[in-house]
């Protein structure tokens, strides 16, 4: 029998190793797996590489991971948001490594990681500072950059509903990076508002098929 439900947040992240690369869903406030982030802090994780769109704001979730000293490096597209004080402090102090990736390239690189591709050519960032050091190639008269896949050891994702096979639905724009990140990690851990019976999710409307998910934990309508 397949049962991906896990009873507690602590259990869900118990075997996440120090030094791991962690994909974290979310854009702005929407879709961030806040409870899983805090469970990871409680576990005392260190030396992490985070792959996530923003670098946290305020004092919770990604910002809390930074504040707690769990993070060595962050791969993201937009680390500078209103209230990204912890990131900015670490950045100015030279205490965190930043890899800045255009948002579409960030998402596409994770998709390539999940899809078993070796890389792809994108026109995005051609002729800019972010093309520095990247291999370029002219295809049909246009310049493209070669980008390589990103994979995580772990993905932490927030979804709306799940069943015991790990099928997921999301809520509105909180879907954002979740479906792609779920495909691109060795261990995909999902916090959901609600776990439902097998068969309750409309098979036409499952957004992340359970094959991409390892663990689901119900947190209710969390913060």
């Amino acid at each position, binding site marked *: 029998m397949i049962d991906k439900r896990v009873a507690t947040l602590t259990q869900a992240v118990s075997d996440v190793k120090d030094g791991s690369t962690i994909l974290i869903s979310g*854009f*702005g*406030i*929407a*879709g961030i797996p806040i409870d899983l982030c805090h469970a990871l802090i409680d576990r005392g994780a260190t030396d992490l590489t985070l792959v996530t*769109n923003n*670098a946290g704001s305020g004092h919770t979730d990604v910002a809390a991971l930074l504040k707690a000293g769990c993070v060595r490096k962050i791969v993201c*597209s*937009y*680390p*500078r*948001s209103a209230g990204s004080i912890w*990131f*900015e402090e670490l*950045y*100015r102090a030279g205490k965190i490594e*930043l890899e*800045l*990736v*255009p*948002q*579409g*390239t960030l*998402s*596409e690189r*994770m*998709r390539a990681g999940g899809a078993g591709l070796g890389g792809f050519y*994108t*026109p*995005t*960032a*051609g*002729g*800019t*500072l*972010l093309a520095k050091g990247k291999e370029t190639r002219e295809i049909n008269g246009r310049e493209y950059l070669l980008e390589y896949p990103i994979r995580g050891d772990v993905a932490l994702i927030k979804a709306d509903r799940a069943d015991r096979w790990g099928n997921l639905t*999301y*809520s*509105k*724009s*909180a*879907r*954002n*990076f*979740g*479906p*792609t990140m779920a495909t691109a990690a060795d261990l995909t851990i999902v916090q959901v508002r609600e776990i439902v019976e097998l068969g309750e999710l409309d098979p036409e409307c499952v*957004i992340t098929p359970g094959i991409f998910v390892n663990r689901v934990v119900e947190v209710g309508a969390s913060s």
Partner: protein
Amino acid sequence: MIQPLTREQMAARVARDIPDGSYVNLGIGVPTLVANYVPAEREVIYHSENGVLGMGPAPKPGEEDPDLINAGKQLVTLLPGGCYFHHTDAFVMMRGGHLDLTVLGAFQVSETGDLANWMTSDQYLPPAVGGAMDLAIGAKRVFVVMEHTTRRGEPKILKTCTYPLTGTGVVDRIYTDLAVIDVTDEGLVVREMIDGFDLEDLQEQTDAPLRSADDLSLLVHRTEVDLSSGL
């Protein structure tokens, strides 16, 4: 005494040129205001890179949903016919050339349409690019809306951008508080200019050479919704 357009007036001017039936991505800042001035008669479908197509206006008090935001992280609504999708698909739309138009803010634009809108030379601020580069290279047309000069009066329309680029040769039209300028194969062409200015006055505030359109017209100050188009 000339009167530069206000931010709202700039947004209203851009709004005149948003075609009926188009798919449009509005950047953060003044571009976001543009939607407020598009006539209700025009059906425009707004895209947001965080996975929304068919965005409506800000929610009424009590109807806010923290899961429904735009790329600027503001609370929005969804129109009937709108839908959600994941980030990678949102960028398929952008990079794949499916958006008719994007309206972006900018630090600088060059005479060949190079765009600089993601990074200044301030070494203390961490760089942040977001979806700007994907929009710049992907949308069928790129409109820039910005003040004509910096607060210190330095030109923002340059022969060559001095700030790091977002994309090369991507801008089609520039809307400022002083003028509407097309980027053409023959250089920058002024389409509209505010009252009290002649081309020399505008050139003084512009680093790149300007020339006047044959049908140069007046850039008017208004914020009421306008059904005419300057395209």
